[in-house]
């Protein structure tokens, strides 16, 4: 079976399309599976859906892909009130009404009142940009369905001006989701999917190296141990994420806290210093304090 992979690839539709490959950047550590998913989405020109725990770098990924491929980034941040139509265009009827009352000449051309959305911008751009549709699950449940055709064919029709907007070059589309709503099957089928796993210790070390090059190894090791211990604690309402860990490290370095202080916590004082950067919830802090109390009494 392995031999049949070697069939000459028929890349007719890709000819002339520069196959830039994403390999991570100097400021972003990409795991192998992430690279494969990004490259598949880029070369087959399909949207890439990214999920993962909050704070694992879903949004940052789009910025880094844009940087690595030398493309512009267009971000569309979705909110609960966002409508799919707003990504295409909006017809500003109120301005037109006002202009008509004032006798403005612009009123005769309806095109003056069509406001371009992010998708329009992305389709019209000279060089195919990276389009980030951030937190798609925040919007109404029908939102992804309303964009199916537009993302598939990369074109849409403007009723007011009777024109069809077609992508000059298909943009790289990256969609992030926090899992607040389930996405429709039809939508999922058109995407590549990647779930950002919480980084293991090794990957985390590489991530830290990228953010704070040359950090003291001893401090880093103690901090990592304290951090993963904290994450493993059963009953935490919100487990601290990568971004919170990085913030905490920054604080540790700014306050010049030594590794011995971190180690001290594993023997008696259970709460790591400056824990406010890691625990964002008073129940969690409380749980931690209670454990520390029991720990001290027991030991």
């Amino acid at each position, binding site marked *: *079976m*392995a031999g*049949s*992979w*070697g*069939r000459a*690839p*028929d*890349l007719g539709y*890709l000819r002339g399309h520069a196959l830039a490959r994403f390999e991570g950047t100097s400021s972003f550590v990409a795991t*192998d*599976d992430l690279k*494969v*998913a990004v*490259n*598949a*989405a880029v*070369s*087959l020109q*399909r949207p*890439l*859906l990214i*999920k993962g725990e909050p704070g694992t770098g879903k949004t940052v990924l789009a910025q880094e892909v844009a940087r690595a491929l030398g493309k512009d980034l267009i971000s569309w941040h979705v909110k609960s009130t966002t409508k799919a139509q707003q990504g295409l265009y909006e017809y500003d009827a109120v301005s037109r009404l006002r202009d008509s009352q004032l006798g403005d000449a612009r009123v005769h051309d309806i095109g003056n009142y069509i406001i371009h959305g992010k998708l329009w911008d992305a389709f019209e751009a000279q060089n195919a940009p990276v389009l980030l549709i951030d937190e798609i699950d925040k919007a109404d449940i029908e939102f992804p369905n309303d964009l199916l055709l537009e993302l598939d064919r990369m074109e849409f029709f403007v009723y007011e001006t009777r024109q069809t907007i077609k992508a000059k070059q298909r943009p790289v589309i990256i969609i992030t989701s926090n*899992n*607040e*709503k*389930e996405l429709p*099957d039809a939508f*999922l*089928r*058109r*995407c*590549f*999917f*990647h*779930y950002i*796993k919480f980084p*293991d*210790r*090794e990957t985390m070390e590489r991530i830290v190296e990228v953010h704070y090059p040359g950090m003291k190894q001893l401090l880093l090791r103690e901090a990592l141990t304290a951090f993963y211990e904290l994450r493993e604690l*059963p*009953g935490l*309402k919100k487990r601290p994420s990568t971004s919170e860990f990085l913030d905490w490290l920054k604080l540790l370095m700014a306050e010049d806290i030594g590794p011995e202080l971190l180690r001290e916590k594993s023997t008696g004082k259970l709460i790591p210093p400056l824990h406010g950067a890691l625990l964002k919830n008073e129940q969690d802090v409380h749980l931690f304090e209670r454990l520390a109390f029991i720990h001290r009494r027991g030991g």
Partner: protein
Amino acid sequence: MFIGFFLALRAAGVKPSLREYLTLQEAMQAGLGDYDIDTFYYLARATLVKEERFIDKFDRVFAESFKGILQPKPEALNGVEATPLPEEWLRLQAEKLLTDAEKAEIEALGGFEKLMETLAKRLEEQKARHEGGSKWIGTAGTSPFGANGYNPEGVRIGQQTGRNRAAVKIWDQRAFRNLAADVEIGTRNMKLALRRLRRFAREGAAEALDLADTIGSTARNAGFLDLKMVPERHNAVKLLLLLDIGGSMDDHIALSEQLFTAAKGEFKHLVHLYFHNCPYDTLWTDARFRSADAVPTYDVLHKYDPSWKLIFIGDAAMSPYELIQPGGGISSWNTESGQDWLRRLVTAFPKSVWINPVPEKHWNYTQSTKIIRDMFGNRMYGLTLEGLDAAMHRLMH
């Protein structure tokens, strides 16, 4: 190509569509597979799996489908002999990572040598093994290597020696097992499942501007402004939660608590009451079961109309007498049997389900569970993501 793999995935319930299969073909033709099995695995995963809860199933099917091709070369197969375990290094790791108590535990298991022997044996089995995974080195699940608190990284010998790499595959690490749909779940996942119960309705005071109606009405009024208001949309689902507390439920408290927290965050109309093992003539608003917190069950039956949805959470495990015999209750004398009270509740609230934190495979071994399940017309569901999903689906239809 890969038709067999595709069909196996569908059979396992991952359900990729033909479209995704063709996308994979396209990607392979575009050279994205790279003739490298790891890359192919990543590519297939990104193409065929669209929800993280299916990744674990995918991993298992992948291992099964490609095991023939992936058999390491004969000389590499004898990995244990060919590359003896870097014992020095492991020892060093152990010194560094293990507490004294854990070291003592290793001694109890027969000491380091014994442990290494077992490890070698495991490596041997690993080559023959095709399913299960409870002993697998590296998953750190139930293997003594994991249980003893070894850094799982440490036991993943392959990376250190470089030559045994073929022994532990990425997909065999089952790194996504926690996300699988049929395992227990956290508050967030529960909230997601509970969201199935949303039914938005416009109720209460008209406060929001209805733009479409305002425009239509203004046009009909020949341009004279006519504002129209509508009430805001709210989740109109009303939920009555009955929780079993104490006794055999102690093992499941954490899980029930999570479900309760999730429900509290999701529903505006939520009433929760407690009972012990089986509801009789009294329910309690507080888990301490004091008389001041007691609510007669008849009051509950009369106060809430049938549009309320009733969810029982309990293990349904009790002595059958508590269920079928008047006076069988464990906390107080009941003149009517628990079965009667349950039937009353189920009849009063046609939309009702029983959610059971005990894994489904054990239900048939407890008589009381079977009786309750029959009473609920099979509307008993496990406290897993799949179970909760099915339960919520049932409540809505």
